[in-house]
């Protein structure tokens, strides 16, 4: 991939909170990585101790982000704004998890 897409493109950030009670386990991590891969921008998640590739489910899982964890989503590229909007929405909708059933 050429650097032209991201060169000069600004990095936009959005703070999110893991609001679903079970945290970023396998299913939400999959939803997140899938959504991130739809966008051309580079997507990174920044936690307290590490920065990971938002397009990789393995990377997202290494955050082990429990309920209540604050993360910063960083998007760099031409569609950064739209990507952040979409990803922020996933956190706001608690990855469509309600209650404690079907959570593992």
């Amino acid at each position: 991939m050429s650097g032209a897409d991201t060169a000069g493109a600004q990095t936009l950030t959005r703070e999110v909170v893991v609001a679903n009670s079970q945290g970023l386990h396998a299913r939400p991590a999959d939803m997140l990585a899938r959504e991130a891969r739809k966008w051309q921008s580079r997507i990174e998640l920044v936690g307290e101790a590490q920065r990971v590739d938002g397009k990789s489910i393995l990377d997202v899982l290494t955050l082990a982000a429990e309920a209540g964890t604050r993360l910063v989503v960083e998007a760099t590229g031409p569609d950064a704004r739209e990507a952040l909007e979409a990803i922020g929405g996933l956190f706001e909708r608690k990855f469509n998890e309600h209650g404690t059933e079907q959570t593992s």
Partner: protein
Amino acid sequence: MKFSDFVATDAIRAQVKAGTKEGVIREMVQSLVDANRIAASDQESIVKAIMKREDLGSTGIGRGVAVPHTKHPSVTRLVGTVAVSPSGIEFESLDGDPVQLFFLLVSPPDRPGDHLRALESISRQLRDESFCKLLKSAKGPVEIQHLLEEADSQGVVS
């Protein structure tokens, strides 16, 4: 969290016989029964719960790896095991590839944090392509156990 914190050594299987998704899950749960980690009377209910979770979306997370799991009230602490299918099993995985390496987890319903930390340990190590390959080509359960111990002692997993 280290692998040794949740992997039942006696239940590791290097060459599963099963050739289907339900078959391998059944075989792994059986291995936990044989290792006295779960009661035989809970076996069927645990297999059903894991299959129900798979119905929500495959836990085949790519790179030939799957993490079938469930919460179950019969366990008081996280218990898991590792199995390898040298030929690979169709698992409807996220990248479509057959799965050779399985980490099965059964966790207490009230401990979501432990489950997350086990997933963290697994995914952190599996980002290492060579570690994945070594596990998949392990000749026996002892070799798998040693690989997991080595990963633990490198302190990459904390």
